[in-house]
């Protein structure tokens, strides 16, 4: 089935953005703790990515505080197994102070996925979850279940 042309012409979803107030500390957390790949192409921002073309742009708000987000606005990082979620949770609790992690929620299981969320030093929320694109492919393939 063909789809009608959208209102605006665009190629792809390319990026999301977050704020930070300490570039170096943020980079340490993103690379050492979260395991993201990162580079800094411009003075005011560093770009991170993992496993795909999509980028999160981390903009430095000089002298300001990053917005305190709610857990409903977050980024998901996929890991390979439920055990890796548990290991990550244990590390988050243990290294909270070292990386400036503000909050660590309990591990939970929803829709067959094991996951937990944490709020980082910049008030950004991250979810560590054992999911992969096959999971999302299956959901899109099944189509609408609730309208």
């Amino acid at each position, binding site marked *: 089935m063909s789809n009608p042309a959208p209102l*605006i012409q665009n190629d792809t979803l390319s990026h*999301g953005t977050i704020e930070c107030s300490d570039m170096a500390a943020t980079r340490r957390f993103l690379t050492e703790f979260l*395991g993201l790949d990162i580079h800094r192409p411009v003075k005011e921002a560093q770009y991170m990515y993992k496993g795909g073309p999509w980028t999160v742009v981390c903009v430095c*708000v000089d002298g300001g505080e990053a917005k305190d987000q709610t857990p409903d606005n*977050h980024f*998901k990082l996929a890991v390979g197994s439920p055990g890796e979620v548990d290991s990550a949770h244990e590390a988050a609790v243990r290294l909270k102070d070292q990386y400036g992690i503000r909050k660590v929620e309990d591990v939970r299981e929803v829709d067959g996925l094991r996951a937990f969320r944490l709020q980082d030093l910049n008030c950004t929320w991250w979810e560590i979850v054992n999911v992969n694109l096959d999971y999302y492919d299956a*959901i899109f393939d099944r189509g609408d279940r609730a309208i």
Partner: protein
Amino acid sequence: MDVQTSKATHVNPTTLICGTMLSTNLQRARRMLEGALGLECVQPKKGVLLARDRGFQKDGSKRGQPYWVLEVREASEIAVPQEMLNHWGMAAPSEAAVDDAYDKLNSHKEEYGIARVQKPRFRNGSYACYFVDKDSNWWELEYRAPNLTYEVLRAKGDLHHD
């Protein structure tokens, strides 16, 4: 090249896979995501809407390639309104496409639940138009010159150090 890649980290992610946001009206959000932005949407359960680029369906040309998922959850109110520095970005094929989008988004604001559209302008090497929807979610449509695409910048690694 100086890209800091992760080694022996505490979390070992395979993929940065999804971003989440809120809407007070999933029907309205879906109308914008599908009709204005051309994304593929699905509602797997009550109160949840997922969106991705088109082309990844079973017989799609991009099936098997990585993609980004946007997860929209329905909420009775937006407790923390988003701002410009928290936005979702899309790549435009040309500067003309950005100009065209500015005109069209302005003409169809009510239909797609768009609150405000900013005039396109050059910023940090891209030509972009920002707009915000009625749930305070910010969006950017940007054209980047071939030497400044995310892929090219990634290959160059760190260009700035403190």
